[in-house]
């Protein structure tokens, strides 16, 4: 056993449980690890809140105590997010038409829409977990929006051809202008679902929500717009998702700065 293994032995177990015999052997020979293990065994200075402080908290809470209904199950919330997404896309495609489906190959259709669906599902699941403090995150919620965006860029870049296009910016801007209202339409019900939860980190949640709403716009455009040039899809379609994420991020930053650091008053309960 070396010092690195010793770290794993210390990390992976409760401080109360004895170390394995190999770790104890290592401690006899390694002064550095002996010091570390000794320091971790040190008692922590006892902290007792003042009785007055505890009484104030208890009295305040007891005065305003009312029964509350626990939040809906994860599955219900996930279903609400997915239903919002699907309804927004379906409504938009119904209004605009599904011209892209006719011109894309089955491979392009399945992989593009499949990756959009996977990205949407993961973001929705992450948002559900962000609504409840202390939820388990299988993928870091900070990295997920970035990872989802990069994956989509790669899928588009691989599946579609890059070629020179006339009026590239004008066409891309037209798609962005068509996609942004769809994103905004999706954002409203998403916010209604989110507000039931506790948003501990508004910046992170804002970016993820904005990206999810933007992906609704991008998906609708992906089904509607028959322009299969890769740059156009990246800028004109995924640009809606990127703009949505940036807007959500900025709203999150504003909300985070606006969160007051407050001192407890009786009226707060």
């Amino acid at each position, binding site marked *: 056993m070396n*010092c690195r293994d010793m*770290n*794993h032995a210390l*990390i*992976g177990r*409760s*401080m*109360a*449980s004895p170390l394995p015999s190999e770790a104890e052997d290592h401690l006899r020979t390694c*002064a*550095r690890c002996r*010091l*570390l293990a*000794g*320091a*971790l065994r*040190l*008692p*922590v*200075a*006892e*902290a*007792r*809140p*003042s009785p007055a*402080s*505890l009484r*104030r*908290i*208890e009295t*305040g*809470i*007891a005065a305003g105590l009312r*029964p*509350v*209904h*626990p*939040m809906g*199950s994860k599955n219900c919330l996930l279903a609400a997010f997915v239903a919002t997404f699907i309804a927004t896309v379906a409504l938009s495609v119904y209004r605009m038409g599904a011209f892209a489906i006719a011109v894309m190959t089955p491979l392009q259709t399945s992989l593009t829409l499949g990756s959009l669906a996977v990205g949407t599902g993961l973001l929705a699941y992450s948002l559900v977990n*962000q*609504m*409840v*403090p*202390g*939820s*388990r*995150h*299988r*993928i*870091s919620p*900070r990295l997920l929006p970035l990872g989802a965006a990069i994956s989509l860029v790669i899928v588009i870049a691989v599946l579609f051809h890059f070629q020179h296009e006339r009026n590239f910016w004008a066409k891309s801007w037209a798609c962005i202008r068509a996609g942004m209202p769809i994103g905004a339409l999706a954002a409203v019900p998403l916010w209604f679902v989110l507000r039931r939860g*506790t948003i*501990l980190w508004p910046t992170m949640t804002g970016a993820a929500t904005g990206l999810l709403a933007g992906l609704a716009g991008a998906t609708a455009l992906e089904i509607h717009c028959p322009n299969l040039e890769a740059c156009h899809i990246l800028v004109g379609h995924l640009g809606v998702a990127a703009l949505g994420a940036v807007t959500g991020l900025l709203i999150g930053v504003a909300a985070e700065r606006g*969160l007051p*650091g*407050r*001192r*407890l008053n009786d009226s*707060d*309960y």
Partner: protein
Amino acid sequence: MRSGLQENSVAQRSFVDLDHWMERYQQADPAAPATLIAALSPALLCFFRSQQANREHADDLLQDTWLRIHRVRHTYRPGEPVLPWVYAIARRAGVDGYRKTRRIAAHEIAVEALPARFAQSEPPNGLPAFEDLVAALPEAQQEVITMLKVGGLSLEEVARATSSTVGAVKQKAHRAYERLRKLLHTYAEDNVAGGAP
């Protein structure tokens, strides 16, 4: 191996079924808040005091945390572990308190040497006190080590409380131990050179 406080807090918690009391708190049982406050406050206070930036405002942060817990008690799902839920809220309260006191420098500065007051709070065994030791770590590592050692949370619970993954928590703890090992070695060498016992 567990500290006195940990033994106390864990023992105290073992008497109260936190999940059960949390459900009763949601049902407005008047006995539930007092039980939860008594069971969780010492460890929460210790958590705040262990964080360098929040030490002086630990009492305020404890009150703020309970205020937040009360407001969002509906987000606790019966059957889920209580500690990560509570610590996630406490962590956010700590960050807000930290920002409020504008101690940005403490967040960024990576301390290579142990704090000057290290020797003053040295316990009889010649090692620095846990709070001083942890104060020498970057904030993210401080948080993980404090939750593991003071809060008595498991790796899984720390990951939940910090909106992170178990792998990321392990990595932070590993880096923290590496840093502590280095600091303690330097400290021991200085003591030998200075003729300390």
